[in-house]
């Protein structure tokens, strides 16, 4: 309810304002005095006559927008009664260039660029500075309001504030204290490295032993496989050439081969691993390794953790050492391959 009342009030004041100007027009019908009044009110326009509106100014007369990444101004040329596209370069062109281009395109044209308040803009102003707000383009006494589009490439130029000051102070502090900090950090890392290596030495020994026995066991598995293959070969050869003939033995050999392929597929189903010799051997190796570790009570998880920490510390040291000797900024952490 109150909202509509407020709206009515606003509309009423607007109407009254427009009525007043109309009233002025009616009471002093003489054109010259009316213009004089106008002239007096908008002295900034100088001797130019301009269209004035009693209601709100229209939003945009000329289109200024980005087409294919370039800024384009569409201007209706007065003498040719057609619209012309002008491609602007905001960072390179200034207002004087634009006016020169307009005049070159249409010789009977006089143009001027005014700010929103009606003040004239200097010719040396870059177009970029103009694009912040709406501006007026006056062509042959016809005033057009131009609204620039949303900024596509905004510069990070801004007034210096407290954040920038803090940033500079931070930079100074870093520049003064960084080498010292690097040396301190290096010493810390070296200490950590020593600790880790000390803890790892007995574990490394046990791991080496376990690896050796596991390797021996898995190798034995391989040679057993070799033996089984030769047994099968010998048996079938004897049966084929000395006892029965090939016609008897062929189906037997086919079913033995088929049985082998069933076995290989079963290997995949049970282990979720392809049956390839290196991987199968590694799998056996790990099996024997963990069996041995369980028997000798070797904490594999702890060992792995220590090894990972060691790798990290060594990597940090490597990153740190180069700049300490060369006084260069640190390189970022690379993802491990």
């Amino acid at each position, binding site marked *: 309810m109150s909202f509509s009342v407020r709206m009515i009030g606003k509309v009423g004041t607007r109407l009254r304002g427009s009525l007043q100007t109309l009233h002025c027009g009616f009471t002093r019908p003489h054109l010259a005095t009316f213009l004089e009044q106008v002239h007096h009110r908008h002295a900034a326009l100088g001797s130019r006559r301009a269209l004035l509106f009693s209601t709100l100014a229209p939003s945009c007369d000329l289109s200024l927008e980005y087409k294919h990444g370039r800024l384009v101004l569409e201007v209706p040329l007065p003498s040719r009664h057609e619209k012309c596209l002008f491609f602007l370069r905001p960072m390179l062109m200034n207002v004087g260039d634009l006016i020169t281009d307009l005049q070159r395109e249409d010789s009977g044209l006089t143009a001027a660029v005014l700010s929103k308040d009606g003040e004239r803009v200097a010719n040396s102003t870059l177009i970029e500075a103009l694009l912040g707000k709406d501006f007026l383009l006056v062509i042959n006494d016809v005033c057009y309001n131009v609204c620039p589009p949303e900024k596509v490439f905004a510069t990070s130029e801004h007034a210096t504030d407290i954040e920038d000051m803090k940033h500079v102070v931070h930079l100074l502090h870093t520049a003064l204290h960084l080498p010292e900090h690097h040396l301190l950090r290096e010493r810390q890392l070296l200490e950590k490295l020593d600790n880790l290596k000390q803890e790892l030495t007995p574990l490394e020994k046990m791991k080496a032993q376990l690896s050796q026995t596991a390797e021996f066991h898995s190798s034995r598995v391989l040679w057993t496989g070799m*033996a089984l293959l*030769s*047994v099968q070969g010998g*048996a*079938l050869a004897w*049966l084929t050439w000395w*006892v*029965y003939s090939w016609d008897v033995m062929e189906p037997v050999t086919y079913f033995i081969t088929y049985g082998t392929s069933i076995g290989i597929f079963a290997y995949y189903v049970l282990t979720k691993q392809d049956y390839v010799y290196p991987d199968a051997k590694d799998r056996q190796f790990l099996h024997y390794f963990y069996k041995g570790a369980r028997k000798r009570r070797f904490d594999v998880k702890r060992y792995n953790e220590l090894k990972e920490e060691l790798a990290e510390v060594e990597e940090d040291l490597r990153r740190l050492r180069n700049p300490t000797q060369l006084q260069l900024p640190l390189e970022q952490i690379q993802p491990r391959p």
Partner: protein
Amino acid sequence: LETSKAFNFCYKTPFGLIRMTAVEVPFLYVGTLISKNFVALLEEHDIFVPEDDDDDD
């Protein structure tokens, strides 16, 4: 840093060939023994006798 080294992929088992023949030949013979016993077993229990099967001519 990547260096193009020529890696030595050729892992050679020491005394490889000798060990291989030492495993293969005896087990080949073991295979023939197994098959001989197997044939004798089949003939004994009369499951499959070769002479009775050659009557396709």
